[in-house]
């Protein structure tokens, strides 16, 4: 299993996803690829962070921030 998927699965076990975001098991992706396609903002956002940090050439902090906030701001509208 790729490390990205491994890390994703570790964080996706957190109870806040179920307790606060009402996500069921079927909503939880098992790979980074499916997480990146998720329509659930928190999942996609986590996936973006993992994908970026596990990349051999991670982007800079401001770039990552722009990607994340832009996505979140748009999804919130």
């Amino acid at each position, binding site marked *: 299993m790729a*490390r990205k998927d*491994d*890390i994703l699965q*570790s*964080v996706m*076990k*957190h109870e*806040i*996803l179920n307790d*606060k975001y009402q996500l069921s098991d079927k909503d939880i992706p098992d790979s980074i690829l499916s997480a990146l396609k998720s329509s659930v*903002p*928190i999942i996609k*956002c*986590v996936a973006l*962070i*993992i994908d970026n*940090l596990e990349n051999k050439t991670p982007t800079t*902090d401001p770039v*990552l*921030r722009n990607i*994340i*906030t832009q996505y*979140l*701001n*748009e999804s*919130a*509208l």
Partner: protein
Amino acid sequence: MIIKNISLENFLCYYGLKEFELSKGLNIILGNNGEGKTKFYEAIDWLFNGDDRNLELLVSAKMFSETEIESSFKVGVSIVVDQYDEKKIIAKSFIVKKERNNSLSISNYSLLGIEETSNGQRYQVDGKSLLDRIFPFQIRRYSMFKGESELNIFKNEDALINLINLFSDAKHFDKYTDKCAFLRDKAERAVEEATKSDKKNQALYNRLKSEIENHKIEEYKTKVHLNSVEEQIAKIEGYLQEAECHVKNADALETINKRIRNIEDRISKLNGMIDEKYTTSLFDENWILVNFESIQQEFSQKVERLNKEKRELQSEFDRKIGQKEGEKKARTELLNNLIPLPVGVPSRTYMEEMIKDEWCKVCNRPAPKGSDEYNFMSKRLEEYLISQTPIEEEIDEGVLFKFDYMNRLLTMNISHQDNLSSLRKIKSNIKQLFKFNDARKKDIEEQLEALEKEKADRERIIGDSSIGADKLINVLKNYNAWQEDKRLRYQEQVDYRNKLRDIQESIRIKTTETETIDLKTAQTFLIKTREVLRDIEKIFNETKDRKFNEFIEHLEKKSNSIFEKLNIESFTGTINFYKRMVGGKPIVVPELQENGRTFYKPNQSLLTSMHISILFAISELASELREEEFPMIFDAPTSSFGDDKTFQFLNLIYETPNQKILLIKDFLATDKTTNQLVIKDDFKRVNRNKAFWIKLERPFDKNNLATLNTNVITL
């Protein structure tokens, strides 16, 4: 990977080329003390970790002495490793040239790497990078141990971090927690900026933010204090734990020392009470008088007699004086009462006139001088005059004893009587003194006996303790001081926690207020972005903590499983990994516990079992996580184990999958008939994959290194 072969060439006592063809599984190398076990271990250690320093100390003295001047020879260690069915060789060596009899020159060492493919093709590579590839240094750190003391890897504070980095996913989360904190912070600021842009909120918002900021500074300071107090508590607990094993002894020692002091005081007092100056009493100047008591008695009788006589004389004298006094009194009374002369007696003037005129004018007849009449008149005048003379003169003449010596004699007599009475007691006093002194001496003997007993107890206490008497007493003093410190620090901890709780509550209230303003003012998307990023940060932080705890639990579970097998049918307790924060970073201390009670001072054998169990657990973890097994090399890891436990230990580790190379001195004994070193029959029962016996070639001179040559016997 496994080490297939280890070759030692002219390395210390390994003269010439000595090879160990190893097997996977358990390889046992037996060797008596001083016959090459540790040198073998040091050779591997030098190969893996050694540098250019002190290479001359690694040279075989025998080889050097046998080499011609100007000739050279090689000193080296090499291993042949099998990894994924490929052979790899790592060889470290240097050349020694004998310059003179006592002088040599040494080349730099070379670390050579050779890889051999499955089709037998060999090519040379960098030895260091090959070594780190096949046997990473982080793994090597937990694979090689010399003696029992090195087995406690957690003595090193970085050990846990190293293990986490090696085996736990927690290490991957550091970068996530940092990045998430950054993103959340930016989102917070975006909301803040948006809220502050509304002028009517600005003043209130700024005040709240400022208050929150102040509270956070206060929170930070309180956390620092709290952390410092907790560190102090941990430190004090550590001291107390360490001291606790001595405290009982220290307490007992203090009590015994007090008792010893009391006994010594009593002995000193008893000695002070003993007065053996018998001769002083005997030779006292009065003592001689005891033999002259009869003289004193005579003296006494005489004094009494004299006294009686004196009193009688005085009485008689007093009686006479009394009579005279009576008469005088009567006469005085007569005179004083003016009794007239008898009838017909004229007054003094008439009497003197008649005597002068030689004529009695009473009877009117002549009385010439010398006549009876004349004489009568003269006598009557004289009597009259006498009757008028004062009586004092007569009393003065009446003192019978002008000096009263009697009293002095009586006092002297009484004094002598008293002296005699006390002198008579000297004999019995001396007798009593002997008796008294004997009794005190007996008391002293009893006290000395008690003192000896107390001192023996004290010796035993000190002997039982691993520290000296002075330190033991200090331990008790420190222990009591630490207990008090601990109580104070715990109180401080409670105070800081309460303060922290109050501060955090204030922050929460103020934050709620600002967020209420945020909700009214800032754009929804900013609020939602902040919310999500806060949650993401929480997810990554808590996942990291969970990974950390899972790893510790996993290691603990594995360690206990091995620990249990290692101590079959004997009481062990369980290994508990006690986690605490020191200087802001987590450290783990393995402890032995029984129903939650910590063993502060387990015996060395139990401690070794615990450390070995942890090491094997780490080794298992390495195998699981890296999907590869690594060899473990131990030099004398079980010195404190008895034969049975060593036997159990070897049979247990035989079951573990990875390769083990164990250097032990067990199972060797001297045959009584031949006086030769032999391997005990018990060794046949030890499960192993391969065994060797390293043995110095006989004869050798233990004072001459040039005679030492360790031979390797494959069993």
